[in-house]
């Protein structure tokens, strides 16, 4: 075992002082050390996107980063999207348009879509589909996910 390192993770505007081995991925640190289990882990090799979080404004795979690398960064997870009881535009659109079934992929899709639309709410339909192809869903067939994100885009313009 290697020694643990003290790291401060800033997640959803709150500081978490944790001690982790260097091999702790950001995904595991968020789930296990910060107790924020909304971020899911599917494949652990970058393919499924269930673990997608936003780091310094960019959607990233949290299974492919180590927690020690995120010191000093601003991390956003699915827990930070809603404002109290009020869902974010993307969350509300997923609810309205039935864009989830089992919900396993949903946190990843919500963070991916949030990053895409915050960067450019006027993204074209083709570019949006291409960007959403980053993540996998085994239930919905994607149709309603695309519709929901398009609806959210209109609200965020």
């Amino acid at each position, binding site marked *: 075992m290697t020694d643990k390192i003290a790291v401060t993770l800033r997640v959803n505007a709150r500081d978490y002082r944790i001690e982790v081995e260097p091999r702790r*991925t950001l995904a595991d640190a968020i789930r296990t050390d910060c107790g924020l289990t909304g971020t899911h882990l599917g494949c652990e090799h970058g393919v499924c*996107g269930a673990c997608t979080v936003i780091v310094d404004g960019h959607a990233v795979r949290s299974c492919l980063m180590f927690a020690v690398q995120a010191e000093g960064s601003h991390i956003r997870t699915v827990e930070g999207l809603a404002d109290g009881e009020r869902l974010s535009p993307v969350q509300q659109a997923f609810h309205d348009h039935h864009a989830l079934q089992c919900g396993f992929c949903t946190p990843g899709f919500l963070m991916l879509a949030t990053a895409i639309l915050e960067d450019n709410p006027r993204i074209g339909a083709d570019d949006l589909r291409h960007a959403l192809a*980053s993540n996998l869903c085994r239930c919905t067939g994607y149709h309603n996910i695309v519709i929901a994100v398009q609806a959210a885009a209109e609200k965020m313009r």
Partner: protein
Amino acid sequence: MKPAPFAYHAPRSLADAVRLLTELGDDAKVLAGGQSLVAAMNFRLARPAALVDINRIASLDFVNSEGGTLRIGALARHARFERPLVEGVLGGLLPYVARHIAHLPIRSRGTFAGSLAHADPASEWCLVARTLDAEIVLTGPKAERRVPAADYFQGVFTTALRSDEIVSEIRIPLPGAGWHGGFAEFSRRAGDFALAMCLALIRIEGGRIAEAKIGIGGGADRPLRIAAAERALVGQAPDAAAFAAAADIAAREIDPMSDIHADADYRRDLVGAMTRRALAHALRA
């Protein structure tokens, strides 16, 4: 799975990073975007005893073009290339190529230099470096070496990079006026590594092709230029017949791999088809 334990180092300068690599020896690895390395570590296909994380070395985070050369620092991430960075043929071509690499969240971390260090035979950036005659700058404990792409790529995941060296920069000579460029790749799903791809550049003068560069990726153990196809294009009018002839040559010249994703015959067909499409794309772009 989870990675095996390792010691973590995050130097602030290139000199410190190289010194650490020298001290730590062969069991240490550079950590750049982590989009290949961490995936391999999670599966314990890679078990480095130490990682030298170069993400905090601010001096490596640059892309600029001066004096006809595009200079790419080791921390330039794939996403940076999705918007035009230079004038001329590469202005539109590099963003087009970049959007074929993996997925958005992977492009926001993975680096151009990391792709060259990793040297997957189906890497888009390795194909770009080879086709455009890039120079790869390797910084080691004693000196800096500049290796032409033609010598740099040596096989599957195998390059001229030594374990105590860092790919610090990539230099790409910018094609001048008259060049047209196109790209085509085939992969089973969006974002997957390509089964075959082609980057084609042609310079047209007085209605005829005066120079050509045909690069193939995914077709063999490393990115290749197809000199015979390039020669066949020179002097021809840039039309479908000339492109088809060059594509046939490319498909014949390549010695494709057979693997779980595609057998050699299928890959050969794809190489031909991608060459034709890339050349046609060059005329449009």
